[in-house]
């Protein structure tokens, strides 16, 4: 099997995730997180997930970065060092969980396998029926808005709830005072 060309990009992603965890200046971490999201968007495009890449680039590299920078401007921008005991126990927990997950995915389908179970039941139905029942070329929009429209409505309500929540916590933008 040929080594995919995305492997160096994935290695870069892992390195960046480690740096985001370790760097103490939170402004650097926010900027690195924007780059992290953008590289993920590129990787999604190479995995044929163009809609997801579009959304990840817009939201991960755009809105998330703005939110983190807005928070950092209101609070301090440096992180204090963590205690050694917490670090060691967290490392052990994380390594054990990772080993368990690797063991659990040992017999799952290989990358790109067309006979994997997830490609067998619902997806061929959608791929076959969308041109005749819905008639639009983009399968993802057809599934999102029509076949799974109820889930999308729930998601919209989640966004609206978050909007109301942030308004309740931080005010409407008219230079609200603290303690309100």
């Amino acid at each position: 099997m040929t080594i995919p060309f995305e492997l160096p990009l994935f290695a870069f992603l892992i390195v960046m995730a480690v740096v985001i965890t370790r760097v103490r200046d939170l402004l650097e971490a926010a900027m690195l997180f924007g780059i992290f999201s953008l590289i993920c968007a590129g990787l999604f495009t190479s995995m044929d997930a163009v809609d997801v890449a579009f959304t990840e680039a817009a939201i991960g590299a755009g809105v998330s970065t703005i939110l983190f920078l807005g928070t950092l401007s209101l609070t301090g921008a440096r992180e204090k060092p963590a205690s050694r005991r917490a670090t060691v126990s967290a490392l052990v927990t994380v390594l054990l969980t990772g080993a368990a997950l690797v063991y659990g995915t040992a017999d799952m389908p290989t990358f790109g396998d067309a006979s994997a179970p997830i490609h067998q039941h619902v997806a061929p139905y959608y791929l076959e029926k969308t041109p005749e029942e819905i008639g639009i070329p983009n399968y993802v929009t057809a599934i999102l808005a029509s076949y799974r429209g109820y889930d999308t409505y729930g998601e919209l309500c989640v966004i609206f709830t978050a909007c109301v929540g942030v308004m309740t916590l931080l005010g409407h933008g008219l230079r609200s005072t603290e303690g309100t």
Partner: protein
Amino acid sequence: MSVLGHWHYWVGITLMMIGLYSVIARENLIKKLMGLNIFQVSAIMLYITMGKVSGGTAPILVEGGVDVVYSNPLPHVLMLTAIVVGVAVTAVGLALVVRIHESYATVEEHEIRQIDRSDS
């Protein structure tokens, strides 16, 4: 178990564990939220790599194409929802961090617990 066939699980799990480490080991609340975001992006990456079909193309209808193999559109739809819900959680989490900073004048977890213990 072939490593070459399962590399995408390993990458997803590695990123997930780095995010999880950031959530549980770091005491700064903003760093915890960044770890949560890394965890979420890694879960999305896992699903998208599982939806890819070799020799497939993006799931947009090719006019007049015969025997075109499309990548599975269902994980893409689910992950679109996941990304948007993730940013909603991040926004509310960061709003809470701002209010915590206004009340306690710090965003480090151990200092907040100290202030709470000395108050009670």
